[in-house]
């Protein structure tokens, strides 16, 4: 399973890579939207893309709009991982085709729960405890 991590912060890409590696993904990184479009062309299909909003060259919303206008990536889930929490802007991103939001800061559990919400496969370890 391929995951695309799009963020201009190397530190944030490292955090996301670490979480997704534990979930069994192969990770490709991109520094901004234009870079991400190139990575999409160069690699096998991605199951998911985690995308920052504010980036140079091409921002996250522009990248989402580009991806959703291109039917090659219809099955790829798009999650915005961002500090952007203005409801009107979130609505705009959802209407553009974002599947879910993770607001920074976040924990691995928050990200994993959000991936589950949109039907992305994650490892679940729920032991039954007798009362």
């Amino acid at each position, binding site marked *: 399973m391929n995951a695309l991590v799009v963020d201009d912060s190397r530190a944030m890409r490292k955090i996301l890579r670490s979480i997704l590696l534990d979930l069994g993904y192969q990770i490709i990184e991109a520094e901004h939207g234009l870079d991400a479009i190139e990575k999409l062309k160069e690699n096998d299909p991605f199951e998911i893309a985690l995308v920052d909003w504010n980036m140079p060259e091409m921002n996250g919303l522009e990248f989402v709009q580009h991806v959703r206008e291109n039917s090659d990536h219809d099955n790829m889930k798009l999650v915005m991982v961002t500090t952007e*929490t203005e409801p009107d802007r979130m609505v705009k991103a959802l209407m553009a085709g*974002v599947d*879910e939001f993770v607001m920074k800061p976040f924990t691995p559990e928050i990200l994993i*729960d959000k991936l589950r*919400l949109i039907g992305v496969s994650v490892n679940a370890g729920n*032991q039954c405890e*007798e*009362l």
Partner: protein
Amino acid sequence: MTLAVDDINFLQKLLADRTGHVLNDAQSYLLDSRLKSLVSAQGFETVEQLVAKTRASNSPLLQDQIAEAMTINETFFFRDMHPFEALQETIIPQLIESRRQTQTINIWAGACSSGQEPYSIAIVLREHFPELMDWNIKILATDISDEILARAKSGEYSQFEVNRGMPAKLLIRHFDRNGSTWTVKNEIRKLIEFRKVNLTKSWFFADMFDIVFLRNVLIYFSVENKQRILEQVHRSLASDGCLFLGGGESIIRLDVPFDRETNGQTSWYQPVPSRKMKK
């Protein structure tokens, strides 16, 4: 910091006496973190000082505050997701059919902590069942802690709290944002009544419940208290009602007349119609 055995024993007994919760030795590491805020609020520097003061003063207020601090559980919106999917896909549609005459649905969220569970239930109802707008829907949300109930009632959550489990579409639709605080909208809040209930005491509710959520709390009680609590739940539940326990909980080894129903990844319990509860 490691507490002295004597202090741990004192806190375990205080918790058991006031709430019925059993904190075993393996869980005693939780004491320090859970009491940290109360230690600061009372002007102490260590848990030992708080325990010493409580022992010396024998103050019921302080004892209550310690019990409250020790029983706060982690909770988040749409925890485990599957129970809420079962509500949406199976249980509420069935109730809409069976309660068509009375147009009333009563739900109880026990041990609701800071309120994420009852609000999640209310959001499911409002989001997916517009036909219930004119029905009499009551969600009773209870907890043992006054402090946590006041928080739950406020409907205010930090960005971090709404980030955990709340889908973005529902967040935008059912919350108002003010800086980094998100507040549940009134149309959701008005479905819920918050009330203090100690599960280990005898309680009686005026209405029979159609749905009971009692999740991730029974694991903290002794077998005797679990038995008593579930007997009382059985008496408060409509004959075709359903009980949800936590994802990691079951009633194995308890003598309570519930049948387990499983649908996909979700299980819930329904009263066995032919068996009477023991007195």
